[in-house]
């Protein structure tokens, strides 16, 4: 793989730990110099041009690898070897954005707490929960327990399990399961034969719903499964609606979305997009 060889050549690994830290320090200083230089040297137009250029190159790289002719087996072109390492690098860079959201949360709840706004005790609960999960999550990670874990678990792991399996996971599952109630009440209220469209929607929902559960199969089990009328067994009818009425409609939507997303991607890639975020004068 010539890409990793190139990396090795450009950035040879540091020979000793001391050299490593020297290299790291130099790299940081160097980067800062470059960034400051960019900021100083580029005018408004230069910056906009640079942003458009970076966007274009990133899109071109991933797109071109697919469309450029390939040879050999498995088929490769001059970009194929780059896809994996570049993808990993982008993943790592993206991971560093995690602080953005956390910062916003800490700011809002910190302010609630500092000013003793109504409901400040909830913000306190927020801080305790965040802090506990952070501390015990990392602690548990660095316990380096053997697998499978021993019978008697050390207490930091115990606390982590209470936080995760006793609170986090059940809160997630319980919130999700609220939907059972909401869907029942939405079905009751929404499915009225007020208009033709509502009636069609109701009829389809009705058939699919009952066709899916054993009681539906049981209701029409008097129709023999090998007779021409077997189509009217509720479970068959439900599957037929999903397969022959639902599938083409879904696909019609999918093609529209595909073209819509292609257009939006193109506008972004070529920096043609106008409107929010893109029009800003900075």
């Amino acid at each position: 793989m010539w890409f990793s060889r190139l990396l090795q050549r450009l950035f040879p690994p540091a020979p000793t730990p001391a050299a490593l830290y020297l290299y790291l320090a130099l790299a940081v200083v160097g980067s800062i110099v470059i960034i400051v230089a960019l900021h100083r040297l580029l005018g408004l137009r230069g910056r906009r041009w640079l942003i458009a250029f970076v966007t274009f190159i990133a899109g071109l790289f991933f797109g071109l690898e697919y469309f450029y002719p390939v040879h050999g087996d498995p088929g490769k072109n001059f970009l194929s070897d780059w896809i994996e390492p570049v993808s990993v690098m982008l993943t790592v860079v993206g991971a560093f954005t995690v602080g953005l959201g956390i910062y916003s949360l800490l700011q809002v709840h910190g302010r609630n707490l500092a000013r003793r706004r109504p409901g400040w005790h909830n913000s306190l609960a927020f801080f305790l929960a965040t802090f506990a999960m952070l501390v015990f999550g990392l602690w548990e990670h660095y316990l380096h327990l053997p697998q499978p874990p021993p019978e008697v678990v050390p207490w930091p792991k115990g606390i982590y399990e209470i936080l995760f399996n006793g609170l986090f996971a059940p809160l997630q599952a319980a919130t999700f399961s609220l939907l059972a109630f909401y869907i029942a009440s939405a079905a009751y209220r929404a499915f009225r034969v007020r208009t033709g469209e509502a009636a069609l929607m109701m009829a389809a929902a009705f058939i699919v719903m009952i066709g899916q559960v054993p009681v539906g199969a049981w209701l029409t089990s008097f129709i023999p499964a090998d007779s021409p009328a077997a189509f009217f067994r509720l479970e068959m009818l439900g599957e037929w609606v999903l397969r022959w009425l639902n599938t083409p409609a879904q696909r019609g939507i999918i093609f529209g979305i595909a073209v819509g997303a292609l257009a939006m991607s193109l506008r972004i890639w070529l920096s043609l997009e106008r409107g929010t975020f893109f029009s800003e004068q900075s």
Partner: protein
Amino acid sequence: MGSLEHANWFMRILFLSLCAIIVAGVLLAQRGREMFIRRIPGLTAIEEAVGRATEMGRPIFFSPGLDSINIVTLQALAILSYIVRLAAAQATRIIVGLRSPIVYPVAEESVREAYDAVGRPENFRPDDIRFISDEQFAYALGAVGIISREEVATNFLFGAFYAEALILTENGRALGALQVAGCPEPTQIPFFIATCDYVVIGDEYYAASAYLTREPTLTGSLVGQDICKAIVIAIIALGVGLATVFAPEKNFLLTWLGGGG
């Protein structure tokens, strides 16, 4: 044949033509060519929904969906910006609830910009742009909390939504909020239809910002998209015709598209 690992000549030509048509539409419109867009029902309701909040003197809640910065979310932010301009002009408060840390600063910037644009920068409240949680259902609970504590009059949900959508809209409905929702993916549309007052379906979502802003770049792109869709229909029609006449192994269109392997 039958591999889609890399493109073949048919795909290259097709892809380039689709791109060229869209870009041509954009460029033509930017040069001032007038383009027609039909009425999109759910979107005409936005003004009414903002007006209702103003009348009742209660805030608006907006969610740009759960995705990080991507194509869908950028579209949601464009709609947000339009709504904020409407609301700001009527001095109505708007609260934005976010799930992605990366979207947070971008959304804040868009809202601030919109307040500046209508000349009411003093009405912008940074606290109303809130990161709720990156966990899907923690986000849902947090958003329901905001909707009920702030007694919002109108709920706007535009963006990528998943299972949590019904938690938001059913609670919003129970509290009597007027709700307008839009999502490109079809999964949550049935629930929006059941619980919201107006719904924007599928591709209409991508047409939304063009319809609302009448920005030439967007309308031009929309016309280009229509031509592309017509091409897709033509390909399907041709493929169906060929499939009716020939056996699958003789259907060259199938092979060109990487199928029949």
